[in-house]
Every structure is written in structure tokens, then in C-alpha cells.
């Protein structure tokens, strides 16, 4: 029996594991991808202690820190369901079953889909959600980056040095990413910014050849070989069963937690980007991981006779 089972190994899950290990709790971490979304970030400039570090390097640091303790790691394991029965949590992965006194869900988020014709058909055939990964395959081509936040701006910055031309396409008239990134982009000669442009279709035969959008009152077709979709993310929820009670989520499908990272189910905690915490930041996720772990410790302590 584990004291705490942590689902997810991003900044929240790993920090929770470090805190649990230092409290000498028996802890298991289920990792689909160590580092989580942080590993996908190109450049991280706002994690305290590092003026600049790449997302991958930061993820490696997190991993090293966790592995310096005796933490049981279930690598490449995805938890399909969590059930609370008679005060004990049972977690199911593909093959195995685990038991724990408390659970921390720190599963993060996954990319949101644009949901337009052509997106599914051309996935991996010109449509991608990871400029860091697939960007180099588009060397010398014209590409479109769709989105308004930091990930969209980062992707456009990355692609400007690889692609021959980058169209940065934003449905609203406003970028929500950092001004410092936007300034960089505006100064780039091969980046064209299209505001208030609604992408309606991705067109091609074997691979992507163009996109159709509604821009300045008319339909427009732009020839591109790649489409980078960076329009935000949606939480990775885990199926939870507990009598008749459902795990409480908000209108964005985020797990509702209080300031102790407690969910509505006793003994079940959540941390990081999967929760309704207002700002999805690496440092915030790590902080919540610490809170969730300390709360789990308090919960277990009270269980003891």
C-alpha cells in the first residue's frame, strides 16, 4: 500500500514527489512523459533561479531532482481509472493495479484542436502541434502559425529561422502572449501577422498545400506547407469513481481545488495545470505540487489511529 500515488510527472507531479519523499512517504509516480508540458517549452525565462533555461533542460533538472530520492516510478504508464473504496484508492493502469491512501492528480493539459476540416486528415502531414519537434522538417517552406498566446509566439519565433516565411494568424485582434516576444516577431522580416483572421480549412492532397481563411471581409487562400496549431490547451482528466460523487470540475473541465489543493473527494488532491488555478505557469504548478503533497501528508497523518 502506498501513502500517496501521484499521477503525472510534470512540474506539479515531480514537486509533489520531492516533498513526499522528504516526508518519507511511500510514493509512486505515474509518468506518461517526464517534464510534462514544460519539456515542450522552447525557452523558459520566468522560473525563479534560472534567468534562462530551455524547457527540456528544466525538465531534466526536475527529473534528476526526483530521482535523487527513492521514488517508485511507473514510467510510460497511464492511469485509466481511480476508484475510492472503503477509504482506499485503487488505481488501474493498462496491466496493473495499485493501492494508495491518497492520490494527487497532476496530469496537466493537452493541445486544443482547431476543429476545422483538414485538421485531422493532415495531422503529421503538415499539421503539427509541436514546432520544437517537427519544425526542422519545414526548412525553406512557407508555414502558418495559428494562435495568440506565448506558445504561438514562441512557435513563430522558432519557425522564422527555419521556414522561408511565417504567417502568424490570430482569430481575435489581440495577442495574449508576452509583449517582449511580440516585439521580437514584429521586427522579423519574414513574419507576416494577420489579425482578426479566422482559419476555416486546411487544404492539400498528400500533404498540406494551403489554408483558407476569412480575412478583411473576404475568403483568402494562402499557400503553406505547414500549419502549426497553438491555440491553447485542455485538461487531461482522469476517470474517478467514488460512490455516487463525481469529481468536481468547472466549465472548462478543470478540477476544482481549494487553497489546500483539495478536491471534493477526501484524500484526492490535484495540482498544476489540470486544476482551476488561475495562472498556468511552471512555477505555479510546482508550488501547487508542494501544497498538494503537504496536504496529502496531513490527510494521511490524520488517518493514523
Amino acid at each position: 500500500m502506498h501513502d500517496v500515488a501521484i499521477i503525472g510527472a510534470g512540474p506539479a507531479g515531480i514537486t509533489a514527489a520531492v516533498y513526499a519523499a522528504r516526508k518519507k512517504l511511500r510514493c509512486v509516480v505515474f509518468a506518461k512523459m517526464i517534464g510534462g508540458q514544460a519539456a515542450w517549452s522552447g525557452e523558459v525565462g520566468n522560473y525563479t533561479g534560472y534567468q534562462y533555461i530551455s524547457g527540456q533542460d528544466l525538465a531534466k533538472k526536475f527529473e534528476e531532482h526526483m530521482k535523487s530520492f527513492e521514488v517508485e516510478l511507473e514510467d510510460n504508464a497511464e492511469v485509466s481509472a481511480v476508484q475510492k473504496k472503503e477509504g482506499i484508492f485503487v488505481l488501474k493502469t493498462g496491466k496493473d493495479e495499485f493501492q494508495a491512501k491518497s492520490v494527487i492528480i497532476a496530469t496537466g493539459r493537452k493541445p486544443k484542436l482547431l476543429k476545422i476540416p483538414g485538421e485531422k486528415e493532415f495531422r503529421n502531414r503538415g499539421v503539427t502541434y509541436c514546432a520544437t519537434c517537427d519544425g526542422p522538417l519545414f526548412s525553406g517552406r512557407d508555414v502558418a502559425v495559428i494562435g495568440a498566446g506565448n506558445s504561438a509566439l514562441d512557435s513563430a519565433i522558432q519557425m522564422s529561422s527555419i521556414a522561408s516565411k511565417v504567417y502568424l494568424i490570430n482569430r481575435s485582434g489581440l495577442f495574449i502572449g508576452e509583449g517582449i516576444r511580440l516585439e521580437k516577431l514584429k521586427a522579423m522580416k519574414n513574419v507576416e501577422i494577420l489579425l482578426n483572421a479566422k482559419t476555416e480549412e486546411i487544404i492539400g492532397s498528400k500533404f498540406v498545400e494551403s489554408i483558407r481563411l476569412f480575412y478583411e471581409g473576404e475568403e483568402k487562400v494562402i499557400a503553406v506547407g505547414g500549419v502549426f496549431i497553438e491555440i491553447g490547451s485542455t485538461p487531461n482528466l482522469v476517470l474517478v469513481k467514488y460512490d455516487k460523487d463525481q469529481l468536481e470540475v468547472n466549465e472548462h473541465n478543470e478540477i476544482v481545488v481549494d487553497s489546500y489543493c483539495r478536491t471534493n473527494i477526501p484524500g484526492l488532491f490535484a495540482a498544476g495545470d489540470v486544476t482551476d488555478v488561475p495562472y498556468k505557469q511552471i512555477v505555479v504548478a510546482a508550488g501547487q505540487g508542494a501544497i498538494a503533497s503537504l496536504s496529502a501528508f496531513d490527510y494521511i497523518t490524520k488517518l493514523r489511529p
Partner: protein
Amino acid sequence: MKIKVYSTPACPWCGVLKDFLKEKKVDFEEIDVSKDQEKAKEMVEKSGQMGVPQIEINGKIIVGFDKEGIEKELENA
């Protein structure tokens, strides 16, 4: 058994795939498609897919990190 891994340096799943193979003590040839445009072309032509990682096991290509798919191919090889 001949195994090739097509990857890019900053791709998290490429790292996961390579670590997985190393852990299984499987030898593989690593191809960085960000540095070698010819090999990048070869990869896209072979698989019809523009995404990394891709692994080729005895001529069969698997796109992405499909742990079970790769394990199965390794057993058959």
C-alpha cells in the same frame, strides 16, 4: 536487426523513445533530420508522415512513441 530512429534535438518524445531503446539495450542508428535534409526527405517519402520521432524496424515504420507497437515489432524482429 536494423533499427533507425529519425528525430530532432528538441523533441521530447524523441528523447523518450531513445531512452526506451537504450534501456532495452537495443542498438539503433540515430538520424537527426534537422541537420540532414536528405534524410528528412527520405523519412517523409518512406512513411508519408511529417512528424518525429519515427522508428524503422526491419523496414517497418512506426510514427510517434507507440510503446506497445514498438515492443511488438522488436519481438517479431
